[in-house]
């Protein structure tokens, strides 16, 4: 195991995060704060409690998930797409590193950035609403697993993408709708039965549901199924990445 290489990639990626601090930190925090102002304070005060939780507090887990998922994907996809775009990927391919080490470095850094943003948004939310965390450890496990699994997905997108437009395509056309329709701002039980069934095919539902359970002990699906879903999603992404490196798809001729 080339631990020094993992460390080098991780630190190099993190240094970009800190170099562009305003862009990477302030903007997600600002936009989430706006969500709190609009949905929590302005509209939320006119909405009745959802499953015994005030609406402002109810959307906190969903909002964190929304930011964390978006950030994990964009950081990881950009992290591996940029070296491909500017040509520095030659160095990764010629270095004595295995695919696991490359993934650990890039995905680790992207997940870490997303985690930092998630924690900061959670902290911000305390200023706007009264949030209780019933199971802090479970909350952390869900948060970390989400960061890692979506960073893996982002890594795959970054390798697949042939242009900056494509890099934006999947997050914009697939991930954002899945998150918005995944119960970030409502409980699945509030939907008509047909849409409840359809929602069950949305993987994000399981994440948000599990994450919300860690806060309020209310969930749309049993916690065990949520955990199983996220573990399965992570395994799927890992398998895809293993295949990519074995065949050299889109990176090695």
């Amino acid at each position, binding site marked *: 195991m080339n631990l020094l290489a993992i460390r*080098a*990639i991780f*630190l190099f990626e993190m240094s970009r995060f800190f170099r562009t601090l305003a862009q990477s930190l302030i903007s997600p925090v600002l936009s989430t704060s706006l969500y709190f102002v609009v949905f929590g304070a302005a509209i939320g005060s006119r909405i009745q409690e959802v499953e015994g939780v005030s609406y402002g507090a109810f959307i906190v887990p969903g909002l964190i998930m929304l930011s964390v998922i978006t950030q994990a994907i964009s950081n990881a996809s950009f992290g591996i797409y940029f070296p491909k775009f500017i*040509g520095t990927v*030659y160095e990764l391919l*010629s*270095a*004595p590193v295995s695919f696991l080490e490359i993934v650990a470095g890039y995905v680790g850094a992207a997940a870490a950035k997303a985690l930092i943003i998630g924690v900061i948004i959670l902290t911000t939310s305390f200023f706007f609403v009264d949030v209780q965390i019933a199971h802090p450890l479970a909350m952390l496990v869900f948060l970390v697993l989400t960061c890692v699994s979506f960073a893996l997905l982002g890594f795959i997108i970054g390798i697949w993408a042939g242009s900056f437009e494509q890099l934006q395509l999947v997050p914009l056309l697939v991930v954002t709708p899945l998150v918005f329709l995944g119960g970030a701002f409502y409980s699945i039980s509030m939907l008509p039965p047909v849409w409840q069934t359809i929602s069950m095919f949305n993987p994000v539902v399981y994440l948000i549901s599990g994450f919300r359970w860690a806060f309020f002990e209310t969930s749309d699906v049993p916690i065990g199924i949520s955990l199983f879903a996220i573990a399965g999603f992570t395994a799927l992404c890992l398998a895809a990445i293993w295949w990519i490196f074995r065949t050299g798809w889109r990176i090695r001729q």
Partner: protein
Amino acid sequence: MSAILEITGLRKSYADGFEALKGVDLEIRKGEIVALLGPNGAGKTTLISTVCGITTATSGDVKVGGHCTLRDYRAARSMIGLVPQEINLEPFEKVINTVRFSRGLFGKPRNDGAIERILRQLSLWDKRNNQIRALSGGMKRRVLIAKALSHEPQLLFLDEPTAGVDVELRKDMWEIVEGLKAAGVTIVLTTHYIEEAEAIADRVGVIARGEMLLIEDKGALMARMGQKQLDVQLSAPLETVPEALAGYDLVLGSDGHTLTYSYDTRAERTGITKLLQDVSRAGLVLRDVVTRQSSLEDIFVDLVHRDEEEETP
């Protein structure tokens, strides 16, 4: 001297059927400088990329320091430094950070002393905290070399290090290569500047259309194929070569003013004295005498040209 790089039967075909390498065999000895000469698209970069792991070979075997580049890629790649042809660098990163990154990527623990030595050697130390985008083209190329040297490789590939570089910088680059050789690094460089191979290489390989046409000691190559020509320029033009000079295989220039005599530079007797005496006896009046030696360029052009003729019957 033992081999640091052994390539046998290396082939590379792309999905579109293009054969970039057609069974290349090559052995590089420890400590030498080998120049691979070839026209554009000859397969030079593909050869290097395959050794380094950027391209996957279709078939064949590559060993670096005895380690197979596929089965034992960690050991093999640790020994290699690669300076690519294109200037591929992260524009917003500082010079020292990108060099440190390369060292870490190759599994070497942080060593500020070693990095400082490399940056000083390449006259980059004063620029260490500059962003790469603020550097000149020549300086960027030095950063690429610094990255390749950061993990102290034993075998360094320089893919066209002086392409598009001005004369002064090219001389600097040659000095850097000499310095690396003195430090014990084996160097394989590709170039299409013949003068570059002539100036710094110990051995010269010629590659064209994915095949190694030859690889030979530079001196021996030039001696073997290096003939010298003597041009005898005459005051009055001739119609034909005089009978008295028939034994010399002279070639009469189209204007009738020049007789060209070819001879081997290494021969004990070049025959020049006797030729000039015979020219005088034949009653010819000399205006000037010029000698020319065939350069590596003539040899190279001749080889590649001959190869092309064989390919297109």
